[in-house]
């Protein structure tokens, strides 16, 4: 009996120390994160393998399955799918491949959403709170397998339009030159 109890205790203690960020659900984002970004950023065009120095990237969104699934929900409900389809592209470029015009790093995608890009990508500055942009960023990255599969969303309860993000093969992002992006 004693050994059983000790065993259980040991196992529990180990597991508790390990912790689990994947399941963290931040239901009340901090005021900063819920800010809409009002500072005008003069970006110009700075595409490719030379990402803009952006704000520091919060990793919490990319590690939380809840945040990524929220990103997926927002991606559809804010009608990102209207142009990018479900990642396959349409009016806008596809997001499931490894080809990144404006960089694949979270801060690149963040800047793309907030600032907009020529040829049709509107700016969502003011419209989408910062934490939601990060959630969408995390989801977009999951589309090309850049997130661990236990964080990326599974299939949705909708018509089957593409393989779920969790089974996306990991892509090596390349810039417009076709060369792999320098990793950070």
């Amino acid at each position: 009996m004693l050994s059983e109890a000790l065993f259980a205790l040991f196992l529990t203690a180990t597991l508790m120390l390990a912790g689990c960020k994947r399941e963290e659900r931040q239901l009340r984002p901090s005021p900063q994160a819920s800010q809409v970004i009002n500072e005008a950023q003069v970006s110009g065009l700075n595409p490719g393998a030379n990402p803009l120095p952006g704000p520091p990237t919060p990793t919490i969104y990319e590690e939380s399955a809840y945040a990524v699934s929220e990103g997926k929900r927002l991606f559809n409900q804010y009608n990102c799918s209207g142009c990018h389809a479900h990642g396959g592209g349409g009016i806008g470029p596809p997001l499931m491949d490894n080809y990144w015009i404006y960089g694949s790093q979270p801060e690149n995608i963040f800047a793309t959403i907030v600032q907009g890009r020529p040829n049709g990508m509107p700016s969502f500055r003011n419209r989408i709170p910062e934490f939601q942009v990060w959630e969408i960023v995390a989801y977009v990255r999951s589309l090309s397998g850049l997130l661990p599969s236990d964080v990326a969303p599974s299939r949705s309860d909708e018509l089957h339009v593409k393989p779920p993000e969790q089974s996306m093969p990991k892509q090596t992002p390349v810039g417009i030159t076709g060369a792999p992006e320098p990793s950070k």
Partner: protein
Amino acid sequence: MSQQVAVPESTREPILARTWRQPGGFWGWFQNVHHTAIGVRFMVTAFIFFLLGGVLAAIMRWQLATPEHGVIGPDLYNQIFTVHGSTMIFLFAVPMMFQGFGVYLVPLICGTRNIAFPRLNAFSYYVYLVGGLLLWAGLLLRTGADAGWFAYVPLSGPEFTPGKRSDFWAQMITFTEVSALGVAVSIATTILRYRAPGMTLNRMPLILWEKLVISMAVIFAMPAVMVVSYMLLMDRTINTQFFNPAVGGDVLLYQHLFWFFGHPEVYIIFLPGTAIASTVIPVFCRRHIFGYVPIVTSVVATGILGFGVWVHHMFATGLPQMSESFFTAATLMIVIPTAVQFYCWMATIWHGRLQLMLPMLWMFGFFFVFLIGGLSGVMLASVPLNWQVHDTFFVVAHFHYVLIGGALFPMFAGLYFWIPKITGRMMNTLLGKVHFWLFFAGFNITFFTMHFLGLRGMPRRVYTYGPEMHWEGLNLLASSGVLLMATGVIVFIVNFFHSKSRGRLAGPNPWGAGSLEWAVSSPPPAYNFLELPTVNGREPLWDALPNQPVVTGLRDDIPEVLVTNSLDSEPQHRDELPPASIWPFLAAIAVSVAFIWSIFSPWGVAYGAIPVAATLLGWLWPRGHSPSPRVPEEV
């Protein structure tokens, strides 16, 4: 059969003890395959899960004590009530009432030396333990399942529960069902094959009848929940579409399959309670049970009818009226066998000589509490009433009356009754009475109140409620009862540890009971029975002839048991049982690795199968020659 000169007991005893001895020490603990050890482990582990589940219940009642109480937020609350429900059903009620009591008692009551398939039985324990730890590790790692204990899709499905929460829950189900199925096979085989000569079906103690019926219910019901939890798991991990309405899936399929398991499950939990009642009541009324045949019929009928009522959990989904009326009728019909048992118990007490000792006191608690639960069940069976009270606190009250009444009260009766057999010492009567009254009062305060909350419109599974609903008074009252219940359980634990070391010695048969477990010393020796008994009546010890024969001729130097036939328990052949072994434990570990791995990657099934197959081979590989070559015969 030739008469043989019996070897004197004094020389046989050490041989038998050596043959049946289970290894000691740290590794020995993992090799033990004797049913008394495994049965006690099931009970202790299940009781610990009961305490943990109770702590969660207390946290919930604390949160609900006042309106908009901010003790815990909705995310944690949802995990807590899900883990509470899952723990109480899958990790406490069934493992305690069916596996724990069954594994410990059935071989003793059958009059044999170990359970059939002892290694499968030990394996079942480890698998259950890992499943329980998985669910609780999930809760501690913030991966607590959070879609309720029946995890309806689509809420528990891939879209609405991101992360691994539901996967942990679904795999916990797999673990506990593998365990329950293994034990069901062991118990049913023990009952059908290992009964003492003379214990014909017509003389089988009621508890064996009920364990047999429960085993069969487990065998037919548990596959449903395994199927459905696997569908859920596959929907979440390998993108099957069982429950996706957009491509032909169906959310009600989940409910049908789940409740096809879920309702028999209620009887799997409740029938052991009636088994304890039918065992305890005759002892404390000093007479044979009244109505043996009606009770057996009722038990069998309950086991069968339990499979025909699952839709009454789904009345609010708007099924066709015809089918709803049919299921109302079926549900009301299932009241009849339970009523028959109640009347038979009443008649037994009426025409007996009642001694209100501790187990019997808990029996009266069971009558009272379960009666209320059963009667509110009659209300719930009616479709229109069900539309009003379904998924409200009325239902919460109902099933706590049924499950606590039908399982927990009998469990405490059974514990007070059999702990002297298990530990060899009597429990303290005064502390036992304090325990009973605290628990009984606290229980009724907490749960009777919930009927009113339900009628006043409080849905279940809400983490809070607004002050404008005026539910706060009753909720505070309900929460206060928890303190009494908790104190009662603490008194029980104190009583247990106190009596375990300092209680009065029990002796083999402290209650003057009639079934075979009371024929051996308390606690039973490693080989259970020095001489296997024969039986002459339904209460073997009460009905024994002055010169009741014993069985001889089994070998003492190898672990051998007597196999009899199912109907009239005529001796058929001798069977050698496997000795202690580490392989069941290793196989359980391999299976656990495969199951848990499969949550994270479908390849876990493929790669995980290799160590599983290896350990199973190690388990089943022949252990060299038997001491004497055995000649097979067609029987």
